[in-house]
């Protein structure tokens, strides 16, 4: 990143005016930059960084949620305990599984929908809306509806039965519950990805396609050599955001686990988030729960870093 001394004090426009304090301030990259950043920074420090530090500290403590004043410092004990708990690893595995299934699927689906809707076809506005609606619906609402639809014996389950799926209530069967959660996520998130891809596709000059067509490029060529380069940069954004969101899925799982243990059935949908809820809130062991989420954060950090290395060629 080049650091240009963009201080226009040295180059004044003709005719030369005397610069007031304000205008020199308002011209200075450094000062204006900090001015613009300040609102964000204050809010961030107050409502993110400070709580983050609090949580960080608590992960080294033995703290009962109902008696927070009596917390004891216990060093790394929470972490050691967590790393010895097979349930934690199972939770991490499930989080990864959900993300591995859901993120590529919803990314491709979003791209596909964006491409479809970007064409000159009748009713594209309607389709665009239809694809986007799930994203703006409350997650609990979607989960509720899907729980109705994926019950044993409904037309939907029978439809899937054709493809070899059993006639079961998906969210009650240990083999299907996780996929069910992934489906919920894909159904809603794809709309978001579509909108982002759509915005990116607007930047593609339409004449490029025509020119390429005149040059004899096939549809596939057009896609590969025109669309893809325009779409690749934003893909990093789409993938990393949906990954992070995928790791944070909670409301849907809580809705499924209602009346039962979190992560039901039989822990098949347990994720690191439910692990945190279980230990931190349900068992009131806040120190332990904070440690679990901290570990989780590091996992996400590593994964996002890897994604950036692989997908983000800029800077």
């Amino acid at each position, binding site marked *: 990143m080049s650091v240009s001394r963009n201080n226009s004090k040295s180059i004044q426009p003709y005719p030369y005016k005397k610069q007031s304090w304000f205008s020199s301030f308002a011209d200075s*990259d450094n000062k204006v930059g*900090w001015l613009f950043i300040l609102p964000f920074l204050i809010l961030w420090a107050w409502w993110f960084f400070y*709580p983050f530090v609090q949580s960080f500290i608590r992960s080294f403590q033995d703290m009962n949620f109902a008696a927070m004043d009596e917390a004891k410092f216990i060093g790394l004990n929470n972490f050691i305990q967590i790393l010895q708990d097979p349930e934690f690893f199972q939770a991490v595995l499930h989080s990864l599984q959900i993300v591995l299934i859901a993120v590529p699927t919803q990314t491709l689906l979003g791209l596909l929908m964006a491409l479809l809707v970007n064409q000159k076809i009748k009713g594209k506005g309607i389709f665009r809306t239809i694809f986007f609606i799930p994203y703006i619906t409350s997650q609990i*609402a979607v989960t509720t509806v899907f729980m109705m639809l994926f019950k044993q014996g409904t037309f939907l389950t029978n439809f899937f039965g054709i493809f070899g799926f059993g006639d079961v209530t998906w969210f009650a069967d240990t083999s299907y519950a996780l996929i069910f959660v992934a489906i919920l996520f894909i159904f809603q998130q794809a709309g978001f990805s579509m909108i982002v891809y759509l915005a990116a596709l607007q930047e593609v000059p339409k004449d490029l396609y025509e020119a390429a067509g005149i040059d004899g490029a096939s549809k596939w060529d057009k896609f590969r050599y025109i669309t893809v380069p325009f779409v690749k940069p934003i893909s990093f954004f789409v993938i990393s955001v949906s990954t992070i969101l995928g790791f944070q899925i909670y409301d849907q799982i809580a809705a499924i686990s209602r009346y039962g243990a979190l992560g039901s059935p039989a822990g098949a949908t347990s994720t690191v988030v439910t692990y945190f809820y279980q230990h931190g809130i349900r068992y009131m062991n*806040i120190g332990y729960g904070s440690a679990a989420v901290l570990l989780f954060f590091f996992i996400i950090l590593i994964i996002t870093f890897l994604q950036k290395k692989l997908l983000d060629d800029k800077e």
Partner: protein
Amino acid sequence: MKARKHLALFANYAIIIVLGLLFILPFIYTIYTSLVSTRDINKLVGISNWTFDNYIMYFTNDAYNVPRWFLNTIIMTGAVIVGNLIVNPLAAFALAKLNFKGKKTIYWIVLATMMVPYHMILIPVYVNMANLGWLNTFLALVVPFLYQSLYIFMLRQFFVTVPNEFMEAARIDGMSKIGLFWKIVYPLARSPLITMSILAFAGTWNSYLIPSTLTNTPKMYVLVVGLNSVKDAVFENTALIMAGVVLTTLPILIFFFLFQKQYIEGISSSGIKG
């Protein structure tokens, strides 16, 4: 040759229609179920059996204050969108176009923040709110969410694509950086800003975890939380619940429909691709 073209076109339409049906199916189910009485769910009944009773129930039952919940949600969402429309673009522009000391650090802060699951800070936030006496107030629902690292990142990516010629032109015209931002760059960002608003609207309107944690008196419920509490209280009355789902989703849909037009205009009128 022509046959191939027609086939391709047909396939095109087929795919989009199938996808469309898949996506709209749950909503048709929801709307239909909300319009019938509990006895008739999961069965197809004629229009004469349809009823608005489920909806009326929400507005006439004294135990729930649905209009108040609507109001709460509107206030919360409105304030958050306004905040996001100010704080995010400012930070994003600074990160994209202005050179200031510590820029790289701030950029990494934004990125890192995006990756932190909110659950990590939920409880400290809750306790801090309590200590400030902000629990069950609009302050709790709004202030921490006046910015979103995600949207800052998104807008920054957009601002980076604004050609530097704009900046030069403005400078030559004697405009300050601040003026440059508000008068030129901000209006240019209409399309991403609308996108951001739509997304922020949806995210805030539908948020459940945070409002249900930070407010727990029925007077301060937001719509999703309130309707969910009804669900728990009324013994799984499916039709009623579906009506609740529709009630929650309708405002956003309307908002989206309204701004969809702007969105298109914004896209086609943005003079970026010179």
